[in-house]
């Protein structure tokens, strides 16, 4: 019973903060609202009994990536005056495109049936032992491939960071 209320509350907060990310004029405020959105999503993970995912979500997204975002925005000192002027055509086309996307979303959701869970929800699936086991047995190849992807990204960053290569 409590979880239902919590779910509703968290969802409300998540949507509100997500809207605030888009609506707030100050980029720093946007970033901070995004951090709050991540927190509410982490709360959802906890409600699904996936504490590991929640913690990693907070560490990686809120704790590392958003700090870097904030870092860059602070260094560039973005504000309303430095914002590049956008032409009326650009704004109009953006509105039309976003409206079309909304129509597509609404249309696809209208046609879809309500999904009924086929297998029973296992409350222990998100615990770290189970997650580790399935990562290293069932999903070993995707797991290792994603690590290679990260390694490639790291090497790329190092190469870009180097001043000159002969």
């Amino acid at each position, binding site marked *: 019973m409590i979880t239902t209320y919590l779910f509703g509350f968290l969802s409300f907060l998540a949507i509100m903060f997500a809207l605030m990310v888009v609506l707030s004029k100050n980029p*720093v405020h946007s970033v901070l609202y995004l951090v709050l959105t991540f927190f509410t999503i982490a709360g959802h993970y906890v409600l699904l009994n996936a504490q590991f995912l929640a913690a990693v979500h907070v560490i990686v997204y809120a704790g590392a990536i958003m700090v870097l975002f*904030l870092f860059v925005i602070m260094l560039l000192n973005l504000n309303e005056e430095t914002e590049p002027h956008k032409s009326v055509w650009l704004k109009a086309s953006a509105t039309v495109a976003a409206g079309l996307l909304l129509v597509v979303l609404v249309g696809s959701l209208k046609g879809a049936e309500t999904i009924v869970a086929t297998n029973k929800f296992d409350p222990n699936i998100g615990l770290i032992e189970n997650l580790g086991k399935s990562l290293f047995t069932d999903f070993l190849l995707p797991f290792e491939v994603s690590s290679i992807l990260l390694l490639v990204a790291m090497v790329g960053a190092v190469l870009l960071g180097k001043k000159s290569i002969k």
Partner: protein
Amino acid sequence: MTSEYLIYKSLLVVLVFVITLVVAMYSTYAERKIAAFLQDRIGPNRAGPFGLLQPLADGVKMFMKEEVIPGTSNKALFILGPAISILFSFLTGAVIPWGSAVNIMGSEYSLQIADVNIGILYLFGVVSMGVYGIMIGGWASNNKYSLLGAIRASSQMISYEVAMGLSIIALVMTTGTLSLNEIAAQQQGWHWNILIQPLGFLIFVICAFAETNRAPFDLPECETELVGGYHTEYSSMKLGFYLFAEYINMFISSAVIATFYFGGYNMPLIARFVHDSNALAILGVVFLFAKIFFFIFCFMWVRWTLPRFRYDQLMNLGWKTLIPLSLLNIVITGAVMMRHEIFQLFVK
């Protein structure tokens, strides 16, 4: 979940909160005393016997001071900064096992607020949030020195979080759990993790110094270059919150170091003399606090011994020394753990 349980837990929360506050308060006193002693001085001794009321006097002063919010600052964020800083400092105390369970009238009472099975990750997440308080405060002040301090703080904390995480991974490999309670329980007797993970301990301690912005890594607030760093524009209790958060962080870091590497509430040989489990639990709390105070002393001892790092030295140490070392530590730990398998590989 009985109401009795809830009352007990809320009592424990209040108790930990109050103890954290008192320890942080007297850390300021200890800092000044130790600084004085290390410099052949006496230190504050006028307020009360041995100056013991000095923290109270400082607190009253902080409250009474004029509150200045710069006109060009971002007011909401300016107020939010110190609040976030101190909030996340307090949150870390929730997963520290302050002692083993106490048995009162047939029911077990754990001396840990929340035995989360991902305790280390929780700790890590909360610590990584702490940087927001500094960044927001520094940016909202609308002052170049504050901004520079904030940027230094965030880049320093992000850099050292990596090495800290990697050094903990080696610890998690040997202990096989992410729960702080289990890590503490495993170290009964002489099985302290420092003996298994000396290199990991060294890296962790260095990173803890960097994470708490203590000397020799106190670049975010280095007075000689940045006036006051990220809290240049702060006054009154808002400044007090920032300073307080630093001392709370120091207390929690000491508790974490004691729990991870120095047996937590365990003390060797004590089980031979004391057989009552409740007495053991209470003695455990005493031992843990003794260890914590020792590490707080070390924090201050180092502050008044070592000079501050230069910024490039800090980054070099973090990225080029500590991270490779912690990776090496992981490899060595793994190799030692799998030594039988590796040995058999060579035999065949």
